[in-house]
């Protein structure tokens, strides 16, 4: 059963993600801050990470993704660099129409818009986990 780590500080949002994910057989673990999230990555070794951007700071999510994708081979997260990251955001639709992952700016694999459409979420989760399993 694939494990998904949800890093999100709003418990209601965690619930909104947990319901469709668990209904589709995923195991969901949650963390309510960037710091806790990084710790849980090591403990849980998830198959996919769903990450909120604004948490304890407005860019806490960015910090987490930058740490996880640090290209330095001595990084303490080097072993987790391959884990696909799905970022949860409303930012790219409200401030700009430029959408899609941008490696140079934000090292994530895909976006899910808030409010979350569970079917869209499930499709993206399935695709990313499949892709990463094929790669490894």
């Amino acid at each position, binding site marked *: 059963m694939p494990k998904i780590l949800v890093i999100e500080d*709003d418990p*209601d*949002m965690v*619930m*909104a*993600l947990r*319901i*469709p994910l668990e*209904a*589709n057989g995923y195991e969901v673990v949650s963390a309510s801050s960037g710091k806790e999230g990084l710790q849980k990555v090591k403990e849980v070794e998830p198959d996919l990470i769903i990450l909120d951007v*604004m948490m304890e700071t*407005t860019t806490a999510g960015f910090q987490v993704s930058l740490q996880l994708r640090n290209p330095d081979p001595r990084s303490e997260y080097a072993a987790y660099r391959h884990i696909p990251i799905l970022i949860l955001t*409303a930012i790219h639709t*409200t*401030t*700009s*129409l*430029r959408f899609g992952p941008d490696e140079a700016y934000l090292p994530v694999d895909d976006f899910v818009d*808030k*409010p*979350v*459409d*569970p*079917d869209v979420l499930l499709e993206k989760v399935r695709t990313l986990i499949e892709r990463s399993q094929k790669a490894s």
Partner: protein
Amino acid sequence: MELEQILARLAEGARQVLQADAAMVRLLDEEDARLTVGAVSGLPAASWRQEPIAVEDSSLDEEALAGQPIIIADAGADCRVVGLPEGYRSVLCVPLMHENHPVGTLHVYATAPARFGEEDVALLMPLANLGAAAVVATRALTALEAMEASKAQFIRVATHELRSPVTVAQSLVRSVLKGYAGELTEKQTELLGRISRRLDFLENLINDLLALAAGKTPELAREEGPVVLNASIGRVMLLLQPRAEEKGLDVTFHPSHERLLVWGTEDGIDRIFVNLVSNAVKYTPSGGSVTISVRRVDGQAQVEVSDTGIGIPEEALPHLFEEFYRAPNAKAMEEVGTGLGLTIVKDLVERYGGCIEVESTVGQGTTFTVTFPLVDL
């Protein structure tokens, strides 16, 4: 210019005009109760650090603030002088007045006694009046800047605080509505559907209000520059084509043959056409068509967004761009709308020097024509 610089020039100017030994500007606080040193000229730096004094403690300033210039021949023999630096005997004190309202006083000092006369007052008054006007204008500008900054801050907070609960509620409702939390009865599905539409409406309203506020707030506006019209509409098509196809609409985009550049921000120009094209998609029944064409007309760039939709009644046309206005036949549809989309469009179009026109026939369709000045590079 900063207030401090203005005051420093005022003190310096006063001293030079009267060829005096020193000068000082005292400013009234907001309650008109205390005076603080605003600037000095020809005086040691220590005189800067004077504590604010109450107006009633300095009869010299009090009289001057009432509008009366005061000449003192020998400060040692005049009890009205308070806080005068050591060694000066002649004092000339004039009010800094703007539109009959005192903002402070201007003091000029000389070491010799009986140094100032009426002709010095006549020389100093124009400078004092100019200084007072500059102080008032600078304070007003500072207040305005602070207000703009707090408005921008408010919008940033509102974006997060207002949107978050709505998007969370929507996400929860959608999960339940789609059956992921267990099977629903028909009645439950219908009721949750109603909740969901209300939340969609609220989200759109918040987004539109924020867009409207952002457009009018310079801090949030990105830098303006030339924008490629075809590219902007291409992005809009990418965003809206799936929705149109889902609805069974035929959407056609005719880009201009040449590259047309207009002035604005990418986000702003995109937003104009997202709103116009999504309206066209929203108010055109299944099987209809939406056509967007870009062309050069009379040395200007013109974009036409036309649809074969429900049309706009004639009596609604004059109100179309008003905030929160929705045409009666638009309201009657099940579609979510805030009545702010076209207000935003008009606001942005005019911001970039363009204009917008609309032609419509009920039951046949609507054409919006946006014209922008061309940017030549």
